[in-house]
């Protein structure tokens, strides 16, 4: 058996046994090092250096900013705006949840965080208005996943780091698919509400309450304007933008809204610390990536796929199905850092734009948030609603359809994703 096979077997067996991914990647890497006689200190060096790239700092900073914005009262204001917009329609609270998630997605870099921020307010209200718990949880879970597509997005940043792509380009590329899927979610959620005769008891739409809500939520709306405007206006780099977001959230939460206290700030930091701890997984994975080169792995995978088909659309579909399958049980961070280095060269050789592949990858991760057994958004929505994860995962099924449509759309019509970044920065040869 070849050395490569041994390494893959060790990794798969350990992972299925339930060894934490950091250790199963680490041990597989150690085995790979042993087999080709490279000192183990490679793992120690990447143990430090893999965490140092400056753009990586963006991730904890955006997580911290999102926490501070949620605890500081911005999510409530955004929900008020959504309510003023769609409160009168059938299933209004369901629609409010989707819109609220779309707004909050423009502040937060993370899907599960968006579900928590909006769902923890709207799910209890939906339950009070006799929506089925299954639907209430499902709509918050599925719309929350937009947090990883509408910029800023931590997953797009991780992809940018692994693929050495431009973060601003990827952020721009995420906007259209993010809004598109959001609108489809509004349609599907609205349809379900009409069929079940949920809600619709809110005030009829009129301009005055909307303008009032927007005025009261101006500081919340200011956050994405500051973050994205700052990045695209050339005022600061994405990493710097994330730190500006942190201090903006602190300022608004403490000085303007006066809803943030020390305990909440410490809580936000503690949560960020836990999430940052998960980034340690990058260290053995990057060591493994260096070894994949010694073993010529991307070449092997490419040969295997190209033997089967040369059609880029079919290849993308195969990768899509594979990613969705992997995403059922694997955490999205791990999915991106493990598979991008191997699959990106393959699709680039087929003429697929790396920016498109990034948005595509993250879209599959969002579906991963919504599929058991490992689905970040399902866990949160289930906990907020007080029902089981299985129950939510059934409710979420029709709401996954918009994501699948979004995926197919971008495979068939790349301009869907690439128009905006190409318009802004010029097409790349």
């Amino acid at each position, binding site marked *: 058996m070849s050395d490569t096979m041994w390494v893959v077997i060790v990794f798969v067996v350990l992972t299925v046994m339930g060894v934490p991914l950091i250790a199963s990647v680490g041990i597989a890497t150690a085995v790979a090092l042993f087999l080709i006689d490279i000192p183990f200190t490679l793992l120690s060096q990447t143990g430090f*250096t893999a965490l140092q790239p400056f753009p990586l700092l963006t991730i904890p900073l955006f997580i911290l900013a999102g926490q501070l914005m949620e605890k500081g009262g911005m999510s409530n204001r955004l929900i008020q705006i959504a309510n003023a917009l769609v409160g009168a329609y059938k299933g209004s609270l369901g629609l409010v949840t989707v819109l609220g998630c779309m707004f909050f997605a423009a502040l937060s870099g993370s899907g599960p965080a968006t579900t928590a921020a909006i769902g923890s307010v709207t799910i209890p209200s939906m339950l009070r208005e006799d929506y089925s718990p299954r639907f209430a949880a499902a709509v918050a879970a599925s719309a929350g996943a937009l947090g990883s597509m509408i910029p800023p997005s931590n997953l797009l940043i991780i992809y940018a780091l692994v693929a050495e792509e431009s973060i601003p380009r990827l952020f721009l590329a995420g906007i259209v698919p993010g809004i598109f899927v959001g609108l489809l979610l509004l349609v599907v959620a609205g349809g379900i509400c009409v069929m079940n005769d949920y809600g619709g008891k809110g005030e009829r739409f009129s301009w005055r309450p909307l303008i009032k809500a927007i005025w009261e939520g101006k500081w919340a709306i200011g956050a994405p304007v500051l973050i994205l405007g700052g990045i695209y206006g050339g005022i600061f780099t994405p990493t710097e933008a994330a730190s500006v977001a942190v201090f903006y959230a602190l300022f608004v939460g403490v000085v303007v809204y006066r809803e943030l206290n020390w305990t909440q700030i410490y809580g936000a930091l503690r949560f960020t610390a836990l999430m940052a701890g998960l980034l340690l997984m990058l260290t053995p994975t990057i060591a493994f990536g*260096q070894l994949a*080169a010694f073993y010529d792995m991307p070449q092997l995978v490419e040969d295997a796929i190209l033997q089967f088909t040369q059609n880029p659309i079919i290849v993308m579909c195969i990768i899509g199905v594979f990613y969705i399958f992997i995403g059922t049980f694997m955490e999205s961070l791990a999915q991106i850092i493990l598979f991008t280095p191997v699959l990106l060269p393959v699709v680039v050789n087929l003429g697929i734009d790396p920016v498109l592949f990034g948005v595509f990858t993250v879209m599959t991760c969002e579906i991963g948030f919504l599929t058991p057994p490992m689905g970040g958004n399902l866990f949160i929505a289930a906990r907020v609603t007080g029902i089981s994860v299985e129950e939510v995962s059934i409710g979420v099924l029709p709401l996954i359809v918009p994501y699948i449509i979004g995926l197919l759309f971008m495979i068939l019509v790349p301009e869907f994703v690439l128009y905006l970044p190409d318009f802004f920065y010029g097409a790349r040869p």
Partner: protein
Amino acid sequence: ANAKSITMNIGWETPLDSHYGILAKKFKELVEQYSNGTIEVKLRCCGQIATEDNAFKAMQLGTVDGYFVSQNNVSPHFPLMDVFVLPYIFQSQDHVMKVTTGPVGDEIRELLLKDTGVYLLTFGGADYRDLYNTKRPIEKFEDFAGLKYRVPKNEVMIETFRAFGAEPVPLAWSETPTALETGTIDGGDNGTNVIEEMKFYEFAKYLTILEHFGGVAPLFASERFMNKLNDEQKAAVWKAAEEAGAFQAEFKAKATEEIRQRLVKEHGMEISYPDKKLFIDAAKKVQAMFAEKKGPVFTEFVEKIGAAAQ
């Protein structure tokens, strides 16, 4: 004696066909020939096996066999390397070659091995960093005022840009293309080939030739790798390295001018050659400042390099 077959993985951070690749391919061809096929060289471009900032340490650990590391990434491990970073330390391409292939080069090679345990196989050819910016053509010293130039995190380079009147923005290389794209920086300086390879001309229209920093990116090898070789193989490696280095030097000398022409004619950059006098004056102050700071051995090497020009 039967030498057993040995593999050498050589890495670098730029694409396969970049200037590093030119040297690496020639080296591979020659080593395999001179060692009668007992050494196989594998080329790992594009930062696959290490990034340039980490490669030197990786060679000390023995996890990487060989790598191209430019001078500013060597100086954290071997501070003396900073002499090469000084502005206007070299007067011409010729001067660089005299230093790197002559006794001064050998002296540095020995000191480096003694201090760091890493072999410097060949310096290769020299590069000048050319300036690019998005704002305006640089016709004279004053045009530099207030432009935000990206600089590597190297104090000599930072001080030099400050002395030129620009506003240095120390940024990681990984953030540089994005920063240029979004306008966080107005420009920067890199080897002429890098400007073309990275397509910086898409954003920055103004090219300035000042020849302020002359640079080398030597090919290094780890002690762990060199210790695997027998004497004949070692001789083959040294011979191949020397010839491949000369080959690249010749190639670079021709290529730089060609690339500048391409940048202007094909990619629409506007080129300018400002008078160097005021820049050299400013650079002398920077040289003096660091000579004082870095002590006698450093100053001695500055003088030796100057002497080699004659």
